[in-house]
């Protein structure tokens, strides 16, 4: 039996799609929200380090599963290999209602004004597709605010002199500093830097009907035991459902968007939780599957008008895949610097996001989340024994006497860093899988070394007896901060969507996730993805004409 036609189908219940589902259903549209994963539950994996979002050695706590999903990764030498979701090269985010917002560390950054006009600020380096966004920070500011208040952010931007202008403060105060924060703060000040508490999508006081954080040891990588972490799964998606206009269908994997002869998206073909093929027709289709899966879905949506995939007339879909290089430094101390107070990360500085001599951009630096015991076994100074009595002794002595400062480097987009669909390999449902290839721009490594040296400088000033840096290589970026594959832009020849996230040439097909990001900021991108969800929804709702969507 054919499914009932709806006004909008949203693919992906993560940071972007959850917001879109809520906004459209509150505006009175009938909405189906398709999610390939399920509702997650803290009790499924509780505080199990080996099945968490950070350490997936015994499986992915929040999906997808290794049995039905796979990707192909192309190495620099051209050889290919199949990777499973629990393996590093997969560049997984998550597959559950709320997606990464269930288990994230929840840093709630607004990008800075300059992050939206990187090309104008710095000029494009050779080998990059660096460009300005077609929107400014000021266009998005009201939508950042909406995300902060509707989903919930704790922080105090008045303590960050580099923060972009805002109309309203964040709704909740920040957590007080942990022992690490109290150590870093005066050291950074002595160096003339400007540390402040990290803004977080985490309740520090009761908010939105949920309690305050109890400051446990386990945060990033885990669902919150007391529901104090603010994701789309416990804020906007329940609100969407409460309107009575939104149906969340879990366990549903989208195969393609069907585009007709008039270049309109008609429906989404998907497989439901029982592997049955379904066609959901809709007036508007919004894709929020993440930079890898949204690109895959568009590339798999082939029609007579778009033989290489919907929106891919100029071969830009899947291009410019970015994430973040994460350079940083470690310091060992004589005294204990660990107080077992979560989430661990508490203090940051934006002194190095811009204005670094000879560099294009930079990034935020922050102390790291609590590293759990297994993860800590690989955190060693170069040349240290990786096993045996000395390794164990190091673990015992320094687990509570070490700290790390690191941060995300704003990467230079590379056209060849890309998502394609593999010509041969298919998933459990017979859908061609993601094929990843390319590498980081060499400038990212220069910026990374610079950022690592600054992190090390702070640790030394804080009294570390021994320090060392860690700088990532040039491997393809993506991971949980994946972005950029359906770039928004004013010129259809060098972008995939217009400034409202609408696919060029297809009036009723939208993207609302990190794929839109022209550049990815020197920050964790989730609040920007949420803001884009509101931004795209606002346009759809404004342009909505009864039962039809017209541009």
């Amino acid at each position, binding site marked *: 039996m054919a499914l009932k036609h709806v006004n909008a189908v949203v693919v992906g219940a993560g940071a972007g799609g959850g917001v879109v589902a809520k906004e459209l259903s509150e505006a009175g549209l009938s909405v189906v929200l398709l999610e390939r994963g399920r509702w997650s539950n803290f009790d499924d994996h509780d*505080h*199990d*380090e*080996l099945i968490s979002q950070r350490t997936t*050695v*015994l*499986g992915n706590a929040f999906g997808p599963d290794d049995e039905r999903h796979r990707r192909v990764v192309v190495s620099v030498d051209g050889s290919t290999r199949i990777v499973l979701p629990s393996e590093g090269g997969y560049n997984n985010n998550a597959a559950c209602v709320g997606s990464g917002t269930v288990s994230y560390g929840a840093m709630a950054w607004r990008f800075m004004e300059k992050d939206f006009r990187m090309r104008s600020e710095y000029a494009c380096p050779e080998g990059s597709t660096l460009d300005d966004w077609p929107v400014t920070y000021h266009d998005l500011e009201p939508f950042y605010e909406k995300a902060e208040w509707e989903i919930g952010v704790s922080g105090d931007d008045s303590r960050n002199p580099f923060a972009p202008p805002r109309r309203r403060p964040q709704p909740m105060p920040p957590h007080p500093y942990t022992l690490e924060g109290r150590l870093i703060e005066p050291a950074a000040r002595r160096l003339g830097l400007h540390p402040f508490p990290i803004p977080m999508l985490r309740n520090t006081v009761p908010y939105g009907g949920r309690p305050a954080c*109890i*400051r*446990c*040891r*386990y945060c990033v990588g885990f669902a919150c035991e007391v529901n104090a972490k603010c994701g789309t799964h416990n804020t906007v998606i329940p609100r969407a459902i409460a309107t009575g206009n939104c149906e969340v269908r879990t366990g549903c994997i989208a195969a393609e968007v069907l585009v007709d002869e008039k270049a309109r998206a008609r429906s989404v073909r998907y497989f439901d939780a029982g592997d049955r093929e379904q066609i959901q027709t809709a007036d508007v289709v919004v894709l929020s599957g993440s930079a890898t899966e949204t690109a895959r879905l568009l590339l798999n949506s082939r029609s007579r008008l778009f033989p290489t995939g919907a929106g891919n007339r100029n071969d830009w879909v899947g291009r410019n895949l970015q994430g973040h290089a994460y350079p940083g430094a470690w310091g060992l101390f004589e*005294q*204990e610097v660990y*107080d*077992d*107070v979560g989430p661990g990360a508490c203090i940051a500085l934006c002194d190095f996001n811009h204005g670094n001599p000879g560099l294009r951009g930079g990034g935020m630096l922050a102390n790291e989340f609590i590293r759990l*015991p*297994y993860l*800590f*076994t690989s955190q060693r100074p170069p040349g240290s024994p*990786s*096993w*045996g*009595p000395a*390794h*164990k*002794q190091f*673990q*015992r002595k320094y*687990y*509570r006497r070490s700290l790390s400062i690191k941060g995300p480097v704003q990467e230079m987009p590379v056209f060849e860093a890309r998502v394609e669909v593999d010509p041969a390999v298919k998933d459990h449902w017979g859908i061609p899988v993601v094929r990843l290839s390319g590498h980081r721009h060499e400038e990212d490594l220069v910026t990374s070394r610079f950022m690592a040296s600054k992190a090390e400088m702070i640790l030394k000033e804080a009294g570390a007896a021994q320090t060392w840096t860690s700088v990532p290589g040039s491997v393809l970026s993506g991971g949980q901060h994946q972005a950029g594959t359906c770039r928004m832009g004013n010129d259809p020849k060098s972008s995939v969507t217009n400034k409202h996230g609408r696919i060029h040439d297809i009036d009723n097909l939208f993207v609302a996730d990190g794929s839109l990001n022209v550049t990815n900021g020197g920050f964790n991108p989730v609040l920007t993805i949420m803001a884009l969800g509101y931004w795209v929804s606002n346009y759809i709702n404004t342009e909505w004409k009864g039962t039809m969507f017209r541009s």
Partner: protein
Amino acid sequence: MLKKKLPRRQFLKGAAVAGCASLLPACGKLPGRWRFFTEAEAAVVSAVCEQIIPADQDAGAISAGVPNFIDKQLTGPYKRHQGVYRTGLAGVQETSRAMFGSGFETLNWDNQTSVLRALESDKAEGQAWESQSSRAFFQLIRDHTMQGFYGSPRHGGNRDYVSYRMLGLDYPQVIGQNRYKKSQSRKA
């Protein structure tokens, strides 16, 4: 209608034979403690794990149940590593015999360390290492040992939370006033 209905007498005979058959292994040896490893392999695995995380003032890998953790995972999430372990453990014995003329679990501590160093540096002798890298195998068992020792106790390792206690981490974590008092009383 059942055409080949089993006559009662024949069924009883069969059941008796089956019953004996199922008892037979138990007659030969004690019911195995191990799911994947043979007893001989388990002895080698245990010795390797203990080298990786030796007992000192705190428990080592064996008393933390790490070999049990690895054995358990090899029939679950680590099924894909079964072949690597079977070949690798045979390789450890080959290398051990080539270097010291005896099985790994019988060597003294320092000789065991030497064997593992040979594996780690990919300079180990043995036919097994023609089909797979000794270094890769060593890194695999090292990672698994770390996981079993430092990971969550629910998977069969980290028995009695030994590694958490070694690091001064209460488990389950106690949240509240008592925690702050305790952390204040810890000597820096």
